């Protein structure tokens, strides 16, 4: 029996691995992740590589220069910088996962994942082995906690009734990649109605259980609305 276990963002792609490693596995257990979550893939890998290389003082003019420089660094330096970058990302309402998630590569020799995971699931060469997958009940509560540590806590936003009422839900949705257009609040209003209708919208203690629920549905909105491009989602009424 083989076992592939790692952090969810990559575990999310264990299912995709199936199509590449046909014959090596007799079954798959995939806990807390799916490659269909938009955050599980980096759709702009060159920008992400340049961003992280730049933070580490490496050149970003060509991929060869970038790679040559990154290879001189220790893994500890890279992991530490990634960790810092992720903390900053939460403060800017972003999960900060782009630099560590798998990418869809051009279909060249040696490419590992060269097709959109949804296409692979629908029409790819997937061996018919048993699959078990699922989640914990409140998966997203830790995302809300990271957001609290990076932004809500330091800026005392949980005591700011107006911010909670007006900005909390749009901010949480933005963290999952859903950005509403200027003057539009259709998505945040719908989410609020569905998950917070019995709560005082300006009171953290009252809001919090509903926000935990919103956190685990967060990426649902993303996968259903996101266009297949590098543009952010602009939801309009």
């Amino acid at each position, binding site marked *: *029996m083989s076992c592939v276990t790692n952090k969810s963002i990559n575990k999310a792609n264990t299912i995709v691995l199936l199509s590449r490693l046909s014959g090596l596995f007799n079954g798959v257990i995939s806990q*807390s992740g799916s490659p269909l979550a938009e955050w599980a893939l980096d759709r702009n890998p060159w920008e992400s590589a340049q961003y992280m290389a730049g933070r580490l003082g490496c050149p970003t003019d060509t991929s060869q220069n970038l790679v040559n420089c990154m290879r001189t660094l220790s893994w500890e330096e890279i992991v530490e910088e990634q960790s810092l970058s992720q903390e900053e990302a939460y403060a800017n309402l972003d999960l900060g996962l782009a630099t560590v998630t798998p990418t869809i590569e051009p279909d060249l020799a040696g490419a590992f994942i060269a097709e959109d995971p949804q296409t692979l699931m629908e029409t790819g060469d997937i061996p*018919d082995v048993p*699959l078990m997958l*699922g989640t914990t*009940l409140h998966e997203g509560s830790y995302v809300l*906690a990271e957001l609290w540590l990076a932004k809500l806590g330091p800026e005392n936003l949980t005591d700011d009734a107006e911010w909670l009422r007006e900005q909390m839900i749009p901010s949480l949705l933005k963290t999952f990649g859903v950005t509403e257009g200027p003057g539009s609040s259709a998505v945040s209003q719908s989410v609020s109605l569905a998950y917070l209708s019995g709560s005082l919208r300006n009171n953290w203690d009252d809001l919090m259980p509903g926000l*935990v629920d919103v956190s685990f*549905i967060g*990426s649902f909105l993303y996968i259903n609305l996101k266009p297949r491009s590098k543009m952010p989602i602009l939801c309009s009424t």
Partner: protein
Amino acid sequence: MKAPILKTTELLSKRLSNIYLYSFEQHSANSLWWLFFLGEGIPIEHGITHADDLLYLFAMPGLPSADDNLFSRYVCEMWTNFAGHGSV
């Protein structure tokens, strides 16, 4: 986190003959939340958070209750049955 998994299940259930979907809902005083965030004073009811399923499958920090240990035996049995026979 959940909807992409439902969608994955929906897509793959058309192509795989043996597929299981679970929701992990075992309440416990133990949680990996405390490993991630102990002492941070975060005002959030964490519930059964990301990775809490691992408490019952691997040696993890915490003081398991009798219920936790019993549930761990169920989970390990289901997971090993699946690994060995493709069914829980």
